C-alpha cells in the first residue's frame, strides 16, 4: 500500500521522462488509438466535393513560419484534395510567407497528380489593403491583380485565372490562418453568400464556434487534429505522418489524465489511512 501513497509524489523527472518516451513511441511504431473524424472536417470535405464545375476555390494563406507546425499540414491536405478532385483554385494571403510556402507545397504535390501551374491553379501572392481590397476583388477580380506572383505575368495568360471575373465565379473560400484574419472573409461571406470554411490553429478554435453555430462557416479544421482528420478523409499522402503526430498528442493527453487519477488515488488512500490510523 505504501507505494500507492507515493503515487501523489512522483518526482517530476520521471514524469518528464515518461512524457518524452510516450510522445516518441507513435513516431517509431504503428500505434492505433481510436481515431474519429469530426463533423466540421467533413463539412469542408463535402463542400470541396460538391463544388460546381464552373466555379473556382479561393485559398487565403494567412499563415507564416510561426504557425507552420499546424497551418502547413492543413494547407498541404487541402491542396492535395483539390488536386485529387481536379478543382481549380487561386492562392493569395495577408501574410508575406503564406502564399510562398503554399506555392512550394503545391508544386511538390502537382508532380504527383500531374497538375500544371496556370491550368489547375495560380497564385497572386501577398496582398495588402485588407477588406477594401477584398471588396474590390469581389467586384472585378482581373483589375485588382495586375500579375501573378510566380511567373510575374498578367492574369490573362493563365486559363484558370481567366475564369474568375468576379466573386460569382468563386464557389468556395478556405482561410488557412494563424491569427484573426477570418473576420474579413466572414464579411465577404455575409455580403456575397459565398460558402466559407476556416482552417485555424488550435488556439483560435473557440472564437470560431459562434460562426459555425450561425452557419456562416460550413466547415473548420482545428489545429493539427483538423489536418490529420482531413488527411484521413482524402486518404492523402501525409495521412500517416499527421496521424502519428495526433497519436503522440493523444498519448500525452492520456498521460496527463492518468497522472491526475493516480495522484488522487494516492491522496484518497493516504487520507483514509490518516482517518482510520
Amino acid at each position, binding site marked *: 500500500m505504501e507505494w500507492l501513497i507515493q503515487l501523489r509524489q*512522483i518526482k517530476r523527472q520521471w514524469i518528464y521522462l515518461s512524457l518524452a518516451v510516450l510522445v516518441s513511441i507513435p513516431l517509431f511504431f504503428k500505434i492505433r488509438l481510436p481515431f*474519429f473524424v469530426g463533423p466540421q472536417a467533413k463539412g469542408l470535405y463535402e463542400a470541396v466535393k460538391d463544388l460546381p464545375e464552373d466555379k473556382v476555390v479561393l485559398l487565403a494563406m494567412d499563415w507564416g513560419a510561426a504557425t507552420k507546425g499546424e497551418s502547413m499540414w492543413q494547407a498541404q491536405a487541402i491542396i492535395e484534395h483539390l488536386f485529387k478532385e481536379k478543382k481549380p483554385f487561386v492562392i493569395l494571403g495577408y501574410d508575406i510567407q503564406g502564399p510562398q510556402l503554399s506555392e512550394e507545397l503545391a508544386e511538390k504535390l502537382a508532380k504527383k497528380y500531374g497538375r500544371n501551374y496556370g491550368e489547375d491553379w495560380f497564385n497572386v501572392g501577398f496582398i495588402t489593403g485588407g477588406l477594401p481590397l477584398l471588396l474590390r476583388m469581389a467586384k472585378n477580380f482581373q483589375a485588382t491583380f495586375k500579375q501573378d506572383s510566380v511567373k510575374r505575368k498578367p492574369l490573362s495568360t493563365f486559363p484558370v485565372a481567366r475564369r474568375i471575373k468576379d466573386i460569382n465565379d468563386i464557389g468556395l473560400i478556405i482561410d488557412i490562418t494563424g491569427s484573426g484574419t477570418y473576420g474579413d472573409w466572414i464579411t465577404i461571406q455575409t455580403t456575397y453568400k459565398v460558402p466559407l470554411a476556416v482552417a485555424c490553429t488550435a488556439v483560435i478554435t473557440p472564437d470560431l464556434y459562434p460562426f459555425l453555430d450561425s452557419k456562416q462557416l460550413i466547415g473548420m479544421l482545428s489545429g493539427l487534429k483538423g489536418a490529420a482528420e482531413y488527411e484521413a478523409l482524402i486518404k492523402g499522402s501525409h495521412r500517416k505522418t499527421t496521424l502519428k503526430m495526433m497519436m503522440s498528442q493523444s498519448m500525452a*493527453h492520456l498521460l496527463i489524465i492518468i497522472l491526475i487519477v493516480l495522484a488522487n488515488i494516492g491522496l484518497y488512500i493516504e487520507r483514509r489511512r490518516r482517518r482510520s490510523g
Partner: protein
Amino acid sequence: MRIFHPVKDPTLLTVYIVASLVGSFLVLALMHKFLSMRAKGRFITALTFLAGFFYSLEFFLPAKNGKNFLTPWVEPVGDALAVIGAFAFPLGLISLAVVHWGNIRRRREGWYFSLFLFIAMLAMALSAFLNHYAHLSLAKKIYSCLFDGLYIPLGVAMMSTLAFYIVSAAYRAFRVTNVDAILMMGAAIIVMLGQIPFGMWLTSWLPMQGIVSSLRIENVSNWFMTIVNMSVQRAIGFGLAVGGIAMALRVWFSLERGMQMGGK
C-alpha cells in the same frame, strides 16, 4: 513655425545642434543651482500631471474627420518615446555588464559563463552589423550560424519545455482537495478530452443532432470554452478595465507613495 524647418546646409546644422546642446546645458545648470530640492520636486510632479493630458485629451477631444489639434503630434511623440527608450537601452546594458563584469573580475564561481555571455554578444552584434551593412560573406555565414543555428532554436527549445511543465503542473494542481481544485480539474479534463480524437471517440455513439448531441464531449468542451470561459474572461476584463484606469489616475496625480518622483 519657421524655426523648426529642416536645415540642409551641414555647417548651419551643426551650429543649431551645438546651440541646442549648450542651451539645454545652461538651462539645466541654472535649474540645478537656483531651484531648491522642494521646488524641483514640485516641478517634476507638475510635469507628470501635464504629461498625462497629452494622450487622454487627444483621445477624448472631438475629432473632425479623424483629427483634432493634438492628433498630428501622436506619431512624432510616439517616435520620440521610442528613441528616448532606445537611449535607455545602453543604460540597461551597462547594468547587466556591471553584474557580469563583477563576476569575471572577482573570479566568482562560474565567472567564465559571464565571459561567454560577452563573447556571444559581441559576436552576434558584429556579425549582424557586418552582414547587414558591409555584406561580407564570412559575416553572413557566422551570422547564419549564430542566428539560425543558435538564437532561434534556443528560443523554440525553451518554449517547447512548456509541454513538460504543463504536465507536471496539471499533475500537482488537479487534486481533489477543495472545491476550487475540483472544478478546475473537471473543466480541464473535459476540454482536454474534447480535443483529442480518442476523447471524441468516447462519445461518438451519441447522435449528431438533437438535444442529446449536446452531451458529445466536443460539444460539452466547446460549451465550456464559448459560454463559461468567455463570460468569466469578460467579467475579469471589466474589472481590469476599471483597475487599469484607477492605477493610471493614481500615477497621473502622483498618489502612489513609492513612485513619487517629485518626492513627498
